């Protein structure tokens, strides 16, 4: 197998991750395209036998973060609204709905969203996520933990104190 083919085996996962990360079809496709172009150019720098998947996701992460920075410079705004606005949460359904999770995902900080998706969707180990994002594993765990709690809060309408919940 040539390098292009090795890279190509990871395209479906890169694409899934990009779609979940950006929440936007064309932005995600552009991100995959940019990732592949950079990977093809730099494949000479990839060490044979090291983890190609992690290498590709690192490229995607860097491109995405740069994109967010460029966007925020243009708009003169901080890159992400990390704060939660619980007042706009969906309150009527107490059943989980797919689109609610998707909506809630958009309201996490990019940092939390990345960790949550790499772990929950791409099923990477915590060590691998730390490597991809270039952060200590403790930071991975704290982002994961906060991200999951915030998602849960948004989806359950969470001011409800946990001890008041009815347990089935």
């Amino acid at each position, binding site marked *: 197998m040539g390098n292009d083919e090795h890279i190509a085996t990871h395209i479906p996962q890169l694409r899934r991750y990009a779609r979940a990360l950006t929440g936007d079809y064309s932005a995600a496709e552009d991100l995959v395209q940019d990732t592949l172009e950079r990977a093809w150019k730099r494949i000479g720098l990839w060490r044979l*036998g090291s983890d190609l998947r992690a290498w590709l996701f690192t490229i995607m992460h860097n491109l995405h973060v740069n994109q967010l920075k460029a966007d925020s410079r243009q708009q003169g705004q901080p890159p992400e609204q990390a704060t939660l606005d619980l007042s706009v949460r969906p309150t009527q359904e107490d059943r989980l709905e797919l689109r609610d999770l998707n909506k809630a995902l958009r309201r996490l900080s990019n940092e939390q969203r990345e960790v949550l998706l790499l772990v929950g969707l791409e099923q990477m180990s915590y060590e691998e996520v730390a490597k991809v994002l270039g952060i200590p594993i403790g930071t991975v765990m704290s982002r994961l933990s906060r991200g999951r709690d915030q998602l849960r809060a948004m989806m359950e309408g969470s001011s409800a104190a946990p001890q008041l919940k009815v347990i089935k």
Partner: protein
Amino acid sequence: MNSQKAAVSELDLHAYVDGRLSEKRRAEVEAYLTASAQESERVRAYQEQNEILHTLFDSVLDEPIPPKWRSSRRHWSFPLRPVAAASVCIIVGGLLGWALRGEYAGRSAKRVDFARQAAMAHAVYTPEVRHPVEVSAQQEEHLIGWLSKRLGAPLKAPHLLDLGYELVGGRLLPGDQGPVAQFMYQDKNGQRLTLYIKTDAGTERETAFRFSQEGTVGVFYWIDRQLSYALSGELRKTELLQVADAIYKKLNP
């Protein structure tokens, strides 16, 4: 219960949700969760998040890949780059390739290619310590379902525990004519075997076992109905044959 409660950390709960705990630890966390409705509700919510993520986004995996993403060829802009890329290919291919060039006269090139590709995939992925597979055996059902879907044929990963080999997991690879599945097995000494499976078996419905030695990797390969199988390993030929035979029997009970 208090002692257990103190012992189970926030970290354990996440690792539990993500299937990252040892069996023993998992059992301890489960006991803890049984005792705490509040914590078990929290874990259930995290698990549900993971499930919904898959429901929302897994269909992306099945979208056809645009041809422009398959190859970088048209993207080379400097004459030196193909040389760099070619040299990497030679490192991969060369390990197995060069020494064996003369051996194939008279044999079906297609079959030999298959054995060789299987050996190559074996040589590339078995040295991986942390990421030998894309989907681990912990999610066996998902693994089999996913690979069967991508190959368009019902696959099975035979259990080889009776021979001392445990399923590590599997991955999807590109073949000449479409996707190929690779299952990896490992014994308690870390000796690894891979089972490489592709769908286009051509007109042949069934063949005997054939053997090919590709460098240090031995390969037994055969066709069974619409699937071609290749079992690769760095074992003695007789031992490898024993495993190949067991796989064949398990797939044809």
